[in-house]
Structures are given as C-alpha cells and as structure tokens.
C-alpha cells in the first residue's frame, strides 16, 4: 500500500500533515499577524497607487492636469447652476470659496468610496494569482486618492485665495483635517470593498448613495441656514462626518464659517471608529476574496 492510499481518511491526513510540521495554506491569520504582514508589505500598496496614477494619466493628453481640472470644472458647473437658480438671499456668504471647498473635499470622499468599493472586484487578476494581504488593495486605492488630494488641495487653496479670502495661520490646519478624513475614507473603503464582494448589486446603488450624500452635506448651501428652524434635523446632519470634514476645512479658509469643538470630536471619533470597524470587518472575510 502506498502512503497516498494509507491516508485517505480525513483525520489521518490532517494529523499526518501536522506531525510533519506543515502549515495550513490560505488560512486567515490572526488579526495582529495580519496587520503586521500588511504593514510589512505596504510598499506594494504605495507603488501600485503611484503606478496607477501614472498609467491613468498617461492615457490622456493633459495627463496629470486632469486631477485638478476635474474638480475645478465640477465646481465651475455647480457654481454656475446654483448661482442662477438659488436666490441671492439663500446663497451662503462668500459663495465661490464656500462651494469650491465643498466640491473639492467631497470629491476626496466620493472617489475613495467609489473606487475603494471596487478595489477587490476590479483586481481579481491580481487577487487570484498572488498571495498577499488583500487589505493592500483598498489601501492602494485610498493612497492613490491621498496622492491626488495634494495637488487638488493646493488648487483649492489657490482658488480660495484668488477669490479674496485672507491667508491666515489657520490654513495650516487644512492638511490636518484632510489627514483625519483620509483615515475615515480608508475605513469606508474597507467596509464597502467587502460589501461589494458579497453583494455585487451594491455597485449600482453606490452612485445614488453618493448623490444623496452630496445633496445632504451642504455642498452648495448652508445646512445651518436651511435647517435653522429644525434643530433635530440639524443635529442629525451634523453627525454626518463628511459634513464635519467639509465644515472644518471651510472654517479654516473661508471667512464666515466657524468651527466648534464638537466638529473636531465627531471628525476624529468617526475616523477612528470607521478605521477599526473597517479593518476588522474586512479581515474577517479574507479567505472569501477571489472565490468568484
């Protein structure tokens, strides 16, 4: 009898494997080991992100300029539309910088959400052929957005400055807010990256969800003014972290927008909470990615 036939009973084989010191392949590692391993391989995510930017931009004539041109055109479009349809009285003060900050910061969120949600299903080739912590895929997409936000934020500040806003020390807080927001975006990307793997239909609903967020976070109107007589709804809207990130950036660089301690608390707490939930939620399905 050969060894092969000898061990055809299930208990026999696994015991034999363990006795010989073999390890289970593809088993989901413990959370701690997973995070250590992902951190050790972070260069993969960073390199992938930067290559992606180059590849995407290489295909267009204007190249990297598109990264800043896109949100600028978007702001221009919304600016024109809302300037025409919104009566002067309901438009917030300093409408142009107010709107530009809203559109630019919201783009950071929506792109991370949309691309992050697709980061596993769009990289099936990579996921199916090489073994690495899958968390590096959503990490690469969010990193790509982080790299892109640098020229975008600079453009945003230039536009705001050109529109007549005074440059103050507070401007230095903008990168701080965006950094906290990046952590939040990463958590959201992780949660949705897993959800879309389970529920493919979600990719159809996401644009709607993004739209809804766009209209409810006060990009082109002031939530405070519109909901002035509905304190309950206002409190609810303020709990939306995306609103707080936008409001905090506005508070730094657009006059007439104030910040409260509460905003900072919501901003930091939401980022930490989303990040922790996202990492755990994503890790728990590690073995699941690539099976379809």
């Amino acid at each position, binding site marked *: 009898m050969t060894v092969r036939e000898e061990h*055809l009973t*299930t208990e026999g*084989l696994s015991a034999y494997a363990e006795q*010989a*010191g073999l390890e*289970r392949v593809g088993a989901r590692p413990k959370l701690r080991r997973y995070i250590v391993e992902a951190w050790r391989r972070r260069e993969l995510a960073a390199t992938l992100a930067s290559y992606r930017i180059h590849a995407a931009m290489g295909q267009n004539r204007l190249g990297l300029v598109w990264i800043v041109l896109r949100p600028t055109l978007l702001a221009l479009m919304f600016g024109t539309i809302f300037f025409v349809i919104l009566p002067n009285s309901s438009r917030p003060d300093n409408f142009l910088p107010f709107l530009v900050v809203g559109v630019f910061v919201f783009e950071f969120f929506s792109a991370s959400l949309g691309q992050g949600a697709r980061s596993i299903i769009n990289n099936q080739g990579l996921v*199916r*052929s090489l073994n690495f912590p899958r968390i590096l895929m959503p990490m690469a997409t969010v990193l790509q957005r982080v790299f892109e936000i640098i020229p975008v934020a600079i453009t945003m500040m230039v536009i705001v400055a050109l529109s007549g806003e005074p440059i103050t020390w507070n401007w230095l807080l903008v990168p701080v807010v965006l950094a906290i927001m990046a952590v939040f975006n990463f958590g959201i990307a992780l949660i949705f990256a897993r959800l879309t793997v389970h529920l493919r239909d979600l990719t159809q609903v996401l644009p709607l969800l993004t739209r809804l967020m766009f209209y409810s976070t006060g990009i082109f109107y002031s939530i405070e003014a519109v909901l002035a007589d509905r304190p309950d709804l206002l409190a609810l809207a303020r709990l939306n972290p995306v609103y707080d990130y936008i409001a905090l950036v506005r508070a730094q660089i657009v006059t007439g927008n104030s910040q409260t301690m509460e905003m900072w608390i919501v901003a930091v707490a939401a980022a930490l909470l989303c990040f922790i939930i996202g990492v755990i939620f994503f890790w728990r399905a590690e073995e699941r990615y690539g*099976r379809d």
Partner: protein
Amino acid sequence: MAATDTRTPTVVVDGIDVEYRVFASGKAAGNQMSLASLKPKGVSTYRALHDISFVAHEGESIGVIGHNGSGKSTLMRSVAGLISPVKGAVYASSRPALLGVNAALLPNLSGARNVMLGGLALGYSKAEVEEMYEDIVEFSGIRDFIDMPMKTYSSGMSARLRFAIAISRAHQILLIDEALAVGDKDFRQKSQERIRQLRDTAGTVFLVSHSMKSIRDVCDRVLWIDHGRLMMDGDPDEVIAAYEGKA
C-alpha cells in the same frame, strides 16, 4: 505505513471541496423587471472540486491532467491558497507559488513595473527587487520590450516574464498552470532546467498541461482530474494511458 515512508511531505491536500459563486446573467427570455428579480436569484454555487486528497513529497514533480473544465486550475489555486476550500484543508511546508496563464498583474503597466509589483507581492522589498531586476529581465529574454505595456506582449512574451518573476524567489513549491505551453523551444529548455534544479534541491513542482509529452518529460507522477474528482494518481505512463484510453 506512514512511519515506513521516509520521504518528507511538502503538500498535503486533505479531502477538499471547492466551490465558486457564480453570477449568472439573466435567462435569455422573459427577463423583465419584476419583484422576483430583486432577489439574488442569479447567484448560485458551482462545486468545482469534490473530495480531493493526496500527499506530495520533496523532489517530486507531479503532472496534473484532465479535460477542459475538469478543475485543474482550481486545484492549483487552492494549493496556492488563493481560494479556500469549503471543506477539507491544504497543508504545505512553505508558501507555494502559482504561475498561471492569466497572471498578468497590470496589463496597462510596463513589463518593468510589473516586475516591481510582482516582486513586492512576493514579499520582497523595493531595494531587493531592484537588485534582482537585472536577473529577472535577463532570464525573461525580452529586454527590448521591457518598457512596453504588458498588454502589448505576445502570450509567449508575457509567459516568459511571469515565469522569470515567479522563480526569482527560491520557492520550494512551484505550481505551473499551462504557463509554459506558449513558450518557444529556447524558453522550454530554460524553464525545464529550472524545474529540474528545483526538484534536485528538494522542491516540489506541479505541472498542469495538455501536452502529454511535456508531462512525460518532466513528471514522475501524474494526477488525473475528471469532473472535479481525482480519478487516478500514480505512474505517468499508467495514468496517461488510462486518460487517453478514456478520451
């Protein structure tokens, strides 16, 4: 008896069942929007492997044969840990490396960048990949095209590059899924040389192929998979004869 078998096992596959989730597109006729279509009726599971068990040892090179869709690639992906079985488990002495046909990492990126990303995904640091870069490009033999996007490569060229990337790491367990089939004579020689080297240094090689000649050339044991089940496991000549007799 296990105790009397002195060979060291490198891979133990223990009764694995593997399933795919399939997203079927709607049936051709009568696919109107209805409430029923909101249910995920398009999602079903397909069992690609049924209760596969075997043990592979140091110094073995194992051919895997079977009809199209029998589950050979699925078996390789499970051994590599890229799909986890719904039942049973795979054990290995070190992390197996899979070399598949569709392993093009990022088709829009140049060969050079794919080398970098492949190396990073294999667990090297950037500096280490830069150090190995010359050897990888040399082995692949496509230096003139290394800055072209990988999607412009011929199948042989991309197989060469992927093979060069995969063997850059001294893997003890190498799974080759038809990746050599498209290579020319020069490349076949080079790669068979590497496979022999690996075998001699106590490695284990799995080779999936539809070419019985290359299986006979390289392998000293063959697994025959049929409709997701292990039909036969043994001497190449016997198994191939049985497979060809049936086909």
